[in-house]
């Protein structure tokens, strides 16, 4: 067995071990200092100086949290506040492509 193979095997072992860890477990050793509060109707008016700058408003609801650092990657769920848009298939020509970039 040469050195390269040994290093590769060690890396594989370490990867397997790390993947068993949850994100939260990995974060437990770090102070959980996040405390972002409720944020609503945050307005962003752009930073350009032109008079025609378009103002737009985005709304984000970030629930107050003290940060749970024990969330498991595999058992977590997402909060989908509203139903996802419907996707349909078509034979028509596409307007755009979506893939890697």
């Amino acid at each position, binding site marked *: 067995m040469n050195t390269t193979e040994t290093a590769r095997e060690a890396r594989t072992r370490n990867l397997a071990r790390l993947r068993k860890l949850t994100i939260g477990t990995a974060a437990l050793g770090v102070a959980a200092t996040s405390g972002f509060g409720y*944020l609503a109707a945050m307005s962003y008016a752009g930073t350009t100086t032109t008079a025609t700058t378009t103002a737009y408003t985005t709304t984000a609801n970030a629930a107050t949290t003290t940060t749970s650092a024990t969330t498991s990657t595999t058992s977590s*769920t997402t909060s989908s506040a509203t139903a996802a848009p419907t996707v349909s298939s078509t034979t028509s020509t596409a307007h755009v*492509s*979506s893939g890697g*970039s």
Partner: protein
Amino acid sequence: MLATADWRAIGTGVRLVVNDGDLAAARVAVERVLADVDLAYSRFRPDSELVALNAARGKPVKVSPLLARALVGSLQAARSTGGAVDPTIGRALRITGYDDDFDRIVGTSRPLELRLAPVPGWSVIAFDATARTVRVPTDVELDLGSTGKGLASDLCSEAALAAAGPGAGVLVSLGGDVAVAGRAPDGGWRILMAEDSNDDPDSGGEVVAIERGGLATSSTTVRQWKSDDGVTAHHIVDPRTGLSAETPWRTATVVAETCEAANAASTACIVLGRAAPEWLAQAGLPARLVAQDGTVVRLGGWPEPALDDATAGV
């Protein structure tokens, strides 16, 4: 009537399609948003707010509303994905070799010293949304590339719609992260499922349509590079290892209420790997996953292709 413009910005391809509206005005609005985004949270621009925040060495920093909004999105994504999408991957990305605009690092070859270590984790970020102050510990670097790009598409579509005029509809794609707003054309906004977002939309294959919301694709096959000893890396970091994610999926496409949410979910699918279908079912999001061998898995109401000869692995 549809009008289209294509150009490059923030290191990726931009496509703007306007339905019955003022394309020129919409493009100006999109360019303005992208300039703001670049200044707020580019990781490669020395004068960006994010670079300054990453260099603040643990001191509280007051951030702009736009960067605050982007941070909120990244933290929400981290929570909703159980940390599979994590903004504290910045340092890992840099060590992995993604330390410059991708247009400049692609095709290069250099030594990389990969480090197998979990990223610090999003919970180390102290963010006061009311005061808009953020504290990032020393040696932690943020990267908002995933949710930030989706958010940029959403913001661009909103701005483009406002500029395009009454009754218009718009589609904005930033490297395949698609946000639509306003009145869709008959049959919806049609999107080709491609390996590469630069592929010609006319090139044939599976096409889907949406009327609202966003669609995003994450892929390990396009934005990748090699070290000088032949190690291939890509831009999706597994927060558990700090390395490019090893995953059974080569692409993951998700539709959601916003492009920001779609991008968070598609990135999470790559990182979660085999656990992605279960997570998607809980999230209730339509998704199309392409395995490394080309097998396509359609979930959450994603339709079968309308074309008999649709290329299954594309």
